[in-house]
């Protein structure tokens, strides 16, 4: 029977030849990811259910990456880190990346990729809704809650309903002013925030396969914004080169069968698409940047698992180079590695960091920071009636801090162009 790539991966994890969309199956989990917000309650549930002193199913398969509330004086947030540290020590978890140590990484989804945990064909669950990001590597990644994570911690298994797949094909060439962020905001505007609930979003086409891994991760990252269970892109040479540079593990590559059944098929010509934003207060509230150009903003924010990777900053630097920002602009590298890269990567004879400093941006320490608001002392947190243009993935009321703030989700090009003018600005004005 014909299967999609998602079905094939789940078949493998269920020790089956075929799984059908809609079936509930028990999966063997390859990696469980957790962080500082959901780790401590997950460990609590684990200890309650399996007993104090119980051992996790496989320490090698558990990755703990604190990233959410890192650089804060908030006592409760600091206690969460202590709880992670304690559990990691008790269980001898080799993949714990402690805050304040040389091992600290930053935003979990980006760090997973950097550290070689994303392996094609495998099943990853994480206590974070953007675990779908890893689907860019031809694997299944999906978010779960603490109870499910605690269940995996003890058993290595979880039930899941096999999703139907929706296929989004982007033909043609990506214009220089267009980014993966524009593609996914385009899709969200077309299908809505519940347009893919309980489904897989499969991305394909020449334009997709021309993208570097980090841009692909921006696409799969926001599958959850359509309610998707996972986002997925088949492995190609770009994927293999990235993976092989970071791990020696062997892996299996799956492709969708030509006659696999899809819930629906969407086709776009990338060369005809325009830069877009999601207006407040929903990621599907799409508008072309041109149609909202001139809207005054008070802040620009370039960061998060969606828009805080090296490629995002390279794009922003193209526009910020030699110019000054008109509003507070926060540059928040997703990880320590990205922060280092800002000091190495050159553009026009300068490092990206120099370009940002000269433009008058604030460069923050790597973490989730204001992507989700966070404690009151979080860098970049929106206040009062801020109007923020942001490369993050959510603009729900209050998401970046203030309930009265308005957030426009945009590409790093649009966020940079708008930072310079202090108004929403189409990046084509600068490219």
């Amino acid at each position, binding site marked *: 029977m014909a299967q999609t790539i998602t079905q094939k991966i789940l078949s493998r994890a269920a*020790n089956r030849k075929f799984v059908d969309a809609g079936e*509930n199956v*028990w999966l*063997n989990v390859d990696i469980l990811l957790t962080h500082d*917000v*959901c780790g*401590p*309650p997950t460990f*609590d549930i684990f200890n*309650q*259910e399996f007993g104090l002193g119980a051992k996790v*199913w496989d320490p090698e398969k558990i990755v703990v990456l604190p990233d959410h*509330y890192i650089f804060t004086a*908030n006592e*409760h*947030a600091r*206690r*969460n880190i202590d709880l992670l540290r304690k559990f990691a020590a008790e269980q001898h978890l080799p993949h714990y990346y402690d805050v304040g140590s040389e091992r600290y990484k930053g935003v979990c989804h980006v760090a997973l990729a950097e550290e070689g945990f994303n392996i094609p064909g495998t099943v990853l669950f*994480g*206590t*974070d*809704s953007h*675990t779908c990001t890893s689907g860019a590597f031809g694997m299944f990644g999906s*978010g*779960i*809650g*603490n*109870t*499910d994570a605690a*269940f995996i911690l*003890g*058993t*290595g*298994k979880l*039930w899941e*309903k096999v999703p139907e797949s929706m296929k989004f094909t982007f033909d043609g060439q990506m214009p220089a002013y267009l980014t993966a962020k524009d593609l996914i905001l385009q899709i969200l505007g077309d299908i809505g*925030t*519940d347009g893919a*609930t*309980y489904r897989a979003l499969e991305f394909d086409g020449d334009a997709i396969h021309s993208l570097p891994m980090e841009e692909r991760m921006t696409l799969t990252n926001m599958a959850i914004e359509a*309610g998707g*269970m996972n986002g997925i892109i088949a492995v190609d040479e770009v994927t293999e080169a990235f993976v092989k540079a970071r791990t020696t593990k062997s892996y299996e590559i799956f492709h969708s069968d030509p006659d696999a059944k899809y819930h629906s098929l969407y086709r776009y010509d990338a060369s005809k698409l325009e830069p877009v934003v999601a207006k407040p207060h*929903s990621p599907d509230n799409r508008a072309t940047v041109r149609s909202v150009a001139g809207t005054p903003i008070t802040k620009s924010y370039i960061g998060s698992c969606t828009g805080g990777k090296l490629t995002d900053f390279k794009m922003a630097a193209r526009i910020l180079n030699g110019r000054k920002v008109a509003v507070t602009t926060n540059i928040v590298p997703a990880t320590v590695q990205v922060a280092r890269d800002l000091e190495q990567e050159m553009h026009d004879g300068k490092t990206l960091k120099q370009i940002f400093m000269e433009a008058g941006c604030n460069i923050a320490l790597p973490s989730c920071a204001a992507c*989700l*608001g*966070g*404690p*009151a002392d979080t860098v970049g947190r929106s206040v009062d009636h801020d109007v923020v243009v942001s490369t993050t993935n*959510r603009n*729900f*009321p*209050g*998401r970046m801090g203030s*309930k009265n703030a308005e957030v426009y989700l945009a590409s790093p090009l649009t966020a940079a162009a708008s930072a310079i003018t202090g108004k929403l600005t189409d990046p084509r004005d600068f490219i």
Partner: protein
Amino acid sequence: MESIIQGKAFVLGKNIDTDQIIPAEHLVYSLSDPEEVKLYGKYALSGVPPAQSGLPEGNIPFVREGSFKSDYTIIIAAENFGCGSSREHAPFSLQVAGVKAIIAESYARIFYRNCVDGGFVIPYETAEHLAEVVKTGDELKIDIKANTLENLTAGKTYTLNPLGDVFSIVEAGGIFAYARQENLMNRTDS
């Protein structure tokens, strides 16, 4: 499991995301310390913009100032309830506030799983546009066996979608109880 859930309705619109259910700044409290747990009740649904809170009129706080419990037992909402982050604190905070069931037109997957697997509240789906006809404060009664909702205030009865595959997990009280019952927690099986 009880077979009847009865109480007052709290009505919300569509796309109620987890940041509205429990804003991120509150995620730092312990989920096991009894004193801190109460705070999840206090701040449940505190992120909903006031005009959307307690429809049709709005401006009704879900939890009264100074209280840790809500007067409302059943949440009625439109589509895509619980979208956004994976925070299990969301269904948990509703449970702590005293909610027993939610009836929505649809749910986001992670929230739905969390409700079921954590045994926090029962997430019912229905094809009826209840958010347009039920008023906050109406007295409601859910018959779990019959899959019906009765609005005692308005004298109307509606059909709820059967819980289907997940009923056995709901009935057991969560994934752990279910797995024990079905002998699924043996780690060496495969």
